């Protein structure tokens, strides 16, 4: 049975659980708040956010940090809806 890259239950893994505490960075709190505001406005609901995360190519999904996945998803869903133009976020982030 095929499964999405996000569907992790029961997967065999040798990776140990890193139990260190990590305070959220400012940009992570910002990303979370952006997602919440977009959800409240009906622009990116939580199921769309998850679907966007699940669509990240597997290699990139596993490499990306948790909130990086959120950013990738938000960008993808907003591009789909024409709110962001293709490459617009890349250009602004680089500028």
């Amino acid at each position, binding site marked *: *049975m*095929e*499964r999405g890259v996000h*569907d992790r*239950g*029961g997967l065999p893994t040798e990776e140990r659980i890193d139990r260190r505490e990590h305070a959220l960075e400012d940009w992570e709190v910002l990303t979370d708040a952006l997602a919440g505001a977009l959800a409240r406005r009906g622009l990116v*609901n939580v*199921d*769309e956010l*998850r*679907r966007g995360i*699940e669509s990240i190519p597997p290699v990139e999904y596993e490499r990306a940090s948790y909130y990086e996945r959120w950013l990738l998803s938000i960008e993808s869903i907003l591009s789909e*809806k024409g709110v962001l133009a293709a490459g617009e976020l890349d250009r602004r982030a680089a500028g």
Partner: protein
Amino acid sequence: MSYRVGEPVTIADRAHRGHHRTPAYLKGKPGRVERVHAAFRNPETRAYGDDGLPRMPLYLVSFARSDLWPGARASGDHRVYVDVFEHWLEEGK
């Protein structure tokens, strides 16, 4: 088809190519209804911009470790409890 607390069920062994919230490790496995929750908007359609209506009944279903991972080396027993939508349930044996 609706289910009652205590009833045996089997999770549908369906490949589903879009967003869905039934984990792979449950598909095709036998479980038992523990709670009947309220009905909720369907995440499978909400994920694509739909309003997710009509609401779908949701159940808390429990599974024995030995049914989920039959060959696994056991370090003691446990049950797994998962919220599953009605349309993923089939009558159990």
